[in-house]
């Protein structure tokens, strides 16, 4: 079991013939992802790494029932590509691209809401469930098992998920919300899915300073039946300095490390000080259950 997608999900890749698209297609296929189609304008009718190509998403949808799509599309064209996926009726849309203008993100994310599509990202490693990876999480990091992981940042997640995998604790799904100002999905969206997923026993939340996503998550965690282990990056960040992730700007005293730790702890989550402590805490929780 898993959330959002599983081994049976049919996957599209937009921008499949580009450098990034090709590289990650070659990782996604051995992971087990059922990539049924790719979109590459002007190359429709061709085949790339065994995957049939189409000129537009609509065309791909005429030939395949598509459950999810992954966008390896330059930032300037992401709005159009994401809207195309939404309007074509695809319900899980993973946007890897970073540096998408925020005005474009607002349009993508709000249109998706209207059309009941889930956006993962933008500026994310994507997500992975057993035999279905959508994005760029290193294959070796993931292994199947009982832990649900939801994170705002990428490499930190690889670190934590990789460590879990190394000691034999696998994951139901690993989801990266992305580091942008206007993320398509929130911690709460994913926590709800993990709570409802029978296979998930423990949830790991990897947050950051800035914004109020972790505080909102804490509100929901109060109502959850499953244990949550959290790690928050940015404890040492000076106020107001831009740290690449727009979310990591501390505004008006809100979104501080201390505030988030307090909220999560009060909600019953265990908050780790170091990434490696996450693994220890999860191990204890799994043993206990």
């Amino acid at each position, binding site marked *: 079991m898993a959330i959002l997608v599983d081994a049976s999900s049919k996957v599209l890749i937009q921008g499949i013939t580009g450098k990034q698209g090709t590289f990650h297609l070659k990782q996604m296929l051995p992971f087990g992802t059922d990539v049924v189609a790719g979109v590459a304008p002007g190359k429709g009718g061709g085949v790339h790494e065994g995957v049939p190509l189409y000129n537009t998403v609509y065309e791909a949808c005429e030939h395949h029932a598509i459950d999810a799509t992954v966008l390896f599309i330059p930032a300037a064209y992401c709005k159009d590509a994401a809207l195309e996926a939404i309007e074509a009726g695809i319900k899980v849309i993973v946007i890897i691209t970073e540096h998408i203008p925020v*005005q474009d993100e607002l349009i993508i994310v*709000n249109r998706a809401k209207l059309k009941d599509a889930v956006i993962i990202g933008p500026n994310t490693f994507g997500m992975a469930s057993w035999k279905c990876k959508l994005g760029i999480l290193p294959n070796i990091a993931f292994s199947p098992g009982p832990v649900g992981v939801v994170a705002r940042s990428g*490499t930190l997640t690889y670190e934590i998920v990789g460590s879990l995998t190394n000691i034999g604790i696998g994951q139901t799904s690993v989801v990266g919300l992305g580091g942008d100002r206007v993320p398509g999905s929130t911690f709460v969206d994913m926590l709800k899915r993990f709570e409802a997923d029978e296979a998930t026993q423990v949830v790991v939340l990897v947050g950051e300073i800035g*914004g109020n996503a972790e505080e909102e998550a804490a509100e929901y965690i109060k109502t959850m039946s499953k244990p949550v282990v959290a790690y928050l990056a*940015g404890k*040492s960040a000076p106020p107001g300095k831009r740290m*690449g992730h727009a979310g*990591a700007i501390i505004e008006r005293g809100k979104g501080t490390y201390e505030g988030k730790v307090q909220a999560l702890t009060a909600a019953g989550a265990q908050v780790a000080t170091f990434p490696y402590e996450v693994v220890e805490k999860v191990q204890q929780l799994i043993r206990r259950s």
Partner: protein
Amino acid sequence: MKCFEFMGKEIFAQFGIPVPQGRMVTTAEEAEGVAAEIGKPVVIKSQVLSGKRGKAGGIKFADTPAEAKAAAADLLAMTVQGHPVQRILLEEKLKIESEIYVAITIDGAAKAPVIITSAKGGMDIEEQAEEDIVKVYLDVFLGLQPFLAKDLARRIGLTGNLAKSYADILEKMYNIMVKKDAELVEINPLVISGDQVIAADAKVTIDDSALYRQKDVPFVDEDMTEVEKMAKAAGVGSFVELGGNIAIMANGAGITMGTLDMVQLFGGQPANFMDAGGGTGVEGTAKAIQILLAQNPKVIFINIFGGITRCDDVANALAYVKKNIGIPVPVVVRMVGTNQEEGVRILREVGIEAYREMKEAAQKAVELSKAGEEV
């Protein structure tokens, strides 16, 4: 990218928002001329990006061109928060009857543009009581319709022509947000002067990710340090100087933050935040290492979890810099992931031993940074 006040006002004027009569100058002589042109008492404002310019003495008043010249000379000799004042804005002094606060920005959590406004604008807006601040979220597909602008005028107590002018300015601010890719359009204070509503200040922040399509906005880098400018010129994704003595590079903002946190928890002082990004290759990584060196750190700590980033690329970059430029300080490398074995082998050849665990590597880096302090 934060715009200087005078740039913000140029954008305002372009979109039809009333601004005081005035001009930006760079010398005291020009200031005298502009003051004479204006022919009224003037205000002279240093053009710096700091929000606390007023309190730092960066704003002066003058009744005559001669006074203006003297005041301008004073300001141009000043340094505000480390930045020498290079530009000043001369404007007619407004007769201020009251000050309004108004801003449009984007609320990521609400996934919507948001308007924030208050009848009690001015210097202490951040300390205003919640009930004096009106906050309204916009639907991005509907935009800011006139009825809402008019209702906001009502909610902050404006009537008649003042309400109309205010609503009109609000609609134009929204247009600026959309057409200029602004993340923030803020006027504080928006001044009521007779039957006029005038933007006495202008804060416009352009979305960095949209600069590629806002080519007519001049680039501002005044809030960057020299090394940050070097990093930008070298194309290093994300770099912020922090002042410590452990120069740090990692790949990915989250792990970079996590690395900084860990170093600090172990008692070390990070010199910088550097997210070298993913898949940067040998050349890009070599440039990034040279930026680390430019900070004259006591130790360099490189933390790589190879995904898109290939460990052998990072190792080759380090080897290249070590051979061709030289690295006069100890280097601690933690390296796992894609092409890990090859990377470790290359590093060993140039005498660098790689760690597998982030924790041990961080502890080693901190230890080296304190070497010679007090034994």
